[in-house]
């Protein structure tokens, strides 16, 4: 049976991981290529890079990072952040990424999903969704609304409707980030994750709120997620990928245990 995927997420700014990452031996490592290698060797099933470089001129630094990562690790990895056109997608894919993810650019211009799917195949196109819980209304019947700018701008779009539409026009996967849960380390947003996952046919990666291995077990089982994104809980050495997987295996959740 298909294993549930555990996916570390790295924020990269101008070619360096933003916070630097403190492993158990207390070494700060800011090189995304080196970190990708460590997670690859530690049993990550996939890696997500999120480019938060502010200026467009410095985007080529990310392309260089992608190329070096592709020479170093031999598992799939995706790149998001700042991708606005099919040409942006092409540059990242040719540099060696398996997938590209689009978030606010797709909200503003859904055509980028269909164009990307047509040019490279749906399996390359991940829809990133930032979502906040709101009061249910005729406009937002699910009670979950799409937001951008880190949650500051409400788009008036229902999260479930957007997920379904994105799938219909060619998204191959959804990375679902709950802004409410993000950074809390109190666990993923289970209701939201189950709602989206059970109503689309494409895989859903849950994101936001992971603090301990139990949270992953919850979102993979009750949340019906196909994969779980993790960040600080591994970046600061609190847990290793291997410890998380052992816990999940003990819970009877199928994970890749040999690498």
């Amino acid at each position: 049976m298909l294993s549930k995927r555990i996916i570390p997420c790295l924020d990269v700014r101008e070619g360096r991981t933003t916070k630097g990452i403190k492993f158990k031996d207390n070494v700060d490592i800011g090189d995304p290529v080196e970190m990708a290698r460590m997670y690859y060797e530690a049993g990550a099933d996939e890696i997500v890079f999120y480019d938060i470089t502010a200026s467009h001129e410095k985007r080529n630094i990310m392309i260089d990072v992608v190329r070096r990562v592709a020479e170093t690790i031999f598992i799939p990895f995706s790149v998001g952040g700042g991708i606005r056109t099919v040409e942006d997608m092409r540059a990242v894919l040719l540099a060696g990424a398996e997938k590209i993810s689009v978030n606010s650019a797709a909200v503003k211009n859904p055509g980028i999903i269909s164009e990307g799917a047509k040019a490279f195949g749906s399996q390359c196109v991940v829809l990133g969704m930032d979502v906040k819980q709101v009061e249910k209304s005729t406009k937002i019947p699910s009670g979950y609304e799409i937001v951008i700018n880190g949650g500051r701008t409400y788009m008036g779009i229902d999260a479930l409707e957007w997920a379904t539409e994105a799938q219909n026009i060619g998204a191959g996967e959804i990375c679902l980030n709950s802004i409410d849960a993000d950074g809390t380390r109190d666990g993923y947003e289970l209701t939201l994750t189950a709602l989206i996952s059970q109503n689309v046919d494409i895989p859903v990666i849950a994101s936001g709120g992971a603090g301990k291995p139990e949270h992953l077990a919850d979102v993979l089982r009750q949340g019906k997620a196909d994969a779980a994104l993790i960040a600080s809980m591994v970046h600061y050495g609190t847990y290793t990928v291997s410890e998380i997987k052992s816990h999940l295996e003990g819970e009877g959740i199928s994970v890749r245990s040999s690498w």
Partner: protein
Amino acid sequence: MIAIIDYNAGNLTSVARAVSHLGFQCLVTNDLEKIRNAERIIFPGVGAAGSAMESLKQFGLDTAIRDVFEAGKPVLGICVGTQIIMAHSDENDTPCLGIFKGKTRAFPTDIRSEDGSPLKIPHMGWNRIHIRKAHPVLADVGDADEFYFVHGFFPAPEDAEHVIAETDYDIHFASVIGFENIIATQFHPEKSGRPGLALLKNFCEWEPAC
């Protein structure tokens, strides 16, 4: 020299990177001369069967691949490459290369997980393979090893002897097929970490005994 068949100007760099990483020389090419002179070829796949076959024919690569196979040189198919070495693909109802007898079929839409919930298509992520027939290219693969898959179709060879390994996704499907000097995987060895690299290395050193 190992030739990696380039027929769609797609993203084939990952196979080349993995092969180079293992210390073998390779070339991503659609040059018929270079393909015929290669010591062995890798035939990856991108996109849908219909457009892939169209591109192959346009460059004359369909004949070149058959020639290399018939010359007894080692051939490795990957993903869509594996699907279009069958006689026919149900994707776009496409007549294919016919190196293997049998069809490429779509996953049934009613597949279920053990708890009864519907399984998603494409089959995307890591899964195990169950070896049905020992093969030198799979020499280092253990029971617990997993490989990375992304596909909605799979090869269904007519001859059960051609099924080298199977994978379980509610149904059992052929995830590695082969006979004589050809072997083909439905998964992506170049994206499957250590066991994938081991498989690629074995292929690059494989001397078929036919």
